[in-house]
């Protein structure tokens, strides 16, 4: 795979945008700013997915991550908002020694990963020797066979169609398991996020804990189950 022309230009724009937004996610003081930078990083990565001809995944990325997960993050940030952090009184990083150690670790990891990507890619290139020009010519001939869109200026790809076919033909059982996983996660997070009051009214608290709470706050006595 080799991009060229405007694709190369957009690759660098979105790639650098993803990396800078990722850095700012980690370094922003305010958690809301972090979330917004993470959103821009995710959108840039979605653009990279489009450049790699994965339009469906790019759409899923924006719908699920940006539209779902990040909105959830923002809700939770609003719920647990810590104002000392915004006023700049609270240290946002761990203590100096831990930060130094982990940054050294990360630098070693950068070196190792980039070295191994380079070495591995040399081997891969030796395995499939194609120059960018040949690859571009092959891609152009493949594109000629695709149907033309209504405006006549672009081609309609069938990548999403192929992805759907493969998803239901070869991965239908994992697909169903994933839906069960999501259901379990939803039920679990609802269980986790209940208050003691909600748990007491659903008769789901250890009796001793409930007695302790009643001693501290007489309001809870009204919530005690009436079965006995």
């Amino acid at each position, binding site marked *: 795979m080799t991009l*060229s022309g405007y694709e190369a230009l957009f690759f660098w724009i979105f790639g650098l945008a993803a990396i800078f937004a*990722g850095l700012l996610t980690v370094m922003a003081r305010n958690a809301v700013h972090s*979330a917004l930078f993470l959103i821009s990083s995710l959108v840039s990565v979605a653009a990279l997915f489009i450049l790699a*001809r994965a339009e469906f995944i790019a759409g899923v990325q924006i719908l699920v991550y940006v539209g779902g997960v990040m909105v959830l993050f923002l809700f939770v940030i609003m719920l647990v908002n*810590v104002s000392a952090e915004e006023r700049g009184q609270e240290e946002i990083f761990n203590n100096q020694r831990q930060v130094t150690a*982990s940054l050294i670790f990360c630098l070693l990891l950068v070196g190792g990963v980039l070295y191994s990507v380079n070495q591995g890619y040399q081997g891969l290139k030796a395995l499939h020797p194609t120059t960018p020009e040949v690859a571009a010519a092959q891609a152009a001939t493949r594109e000629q066979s695709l149907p033309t869109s209504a405006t006549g200026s672009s081609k309609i790809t069938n990548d999403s169609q192929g992805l759907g076919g493969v998803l239901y033909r*070869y991965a239908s059982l994992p697909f169903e398991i994933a839906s069960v996983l999501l259901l379990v*996660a*939803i039920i679990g*997070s609802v269980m986790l996020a209940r208050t003691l009051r909600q748990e007491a009214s659903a008769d789901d608290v250890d009796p001793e804990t409930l007695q302790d709470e009643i001693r501290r706050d007489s309001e809870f006595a009204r919530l005690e189950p009436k079965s006995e």
Partner: protein
Amino acid sequence: MLNFFNPIVTLLLQEGLRARFDLMRYAAANPDLSKFLVIGALLFIIGVAGVLTRRNIIVIFMSIELILNAANLNFIAFSRYLHEMGSVNAAAGQIFTVFVIVVAAAEAAIGLGIVIALYRNKETIWVDEIDLLKW
């Protein structure tokens, strides 16, 4: 556009350096699989640095999302590469990405539920103050 700069660059750079520079410009104008992998690796390491250095548990969760997203980028890049090499199962990378996104969504829901329960009980979101299991 680069043609405009060519004479200046020729003037400035010596022969060996110029050959290296031409090679780099050629590689930059034709980003291939390795460039996708490098961007994925950098995003991954930024995420690791965030998990290791930040104190805010919500930002740590966001860094984990960054790590998962870097893995997704690698899957997609290899899927495209294998597709162009004529592999029959090239869509497997994209399908794996769908499942990674599903698991990330489930993880975010559970993790944020835990954060809310924790904040309700401990009144803090700083990870160094959450040391109930430490002695």
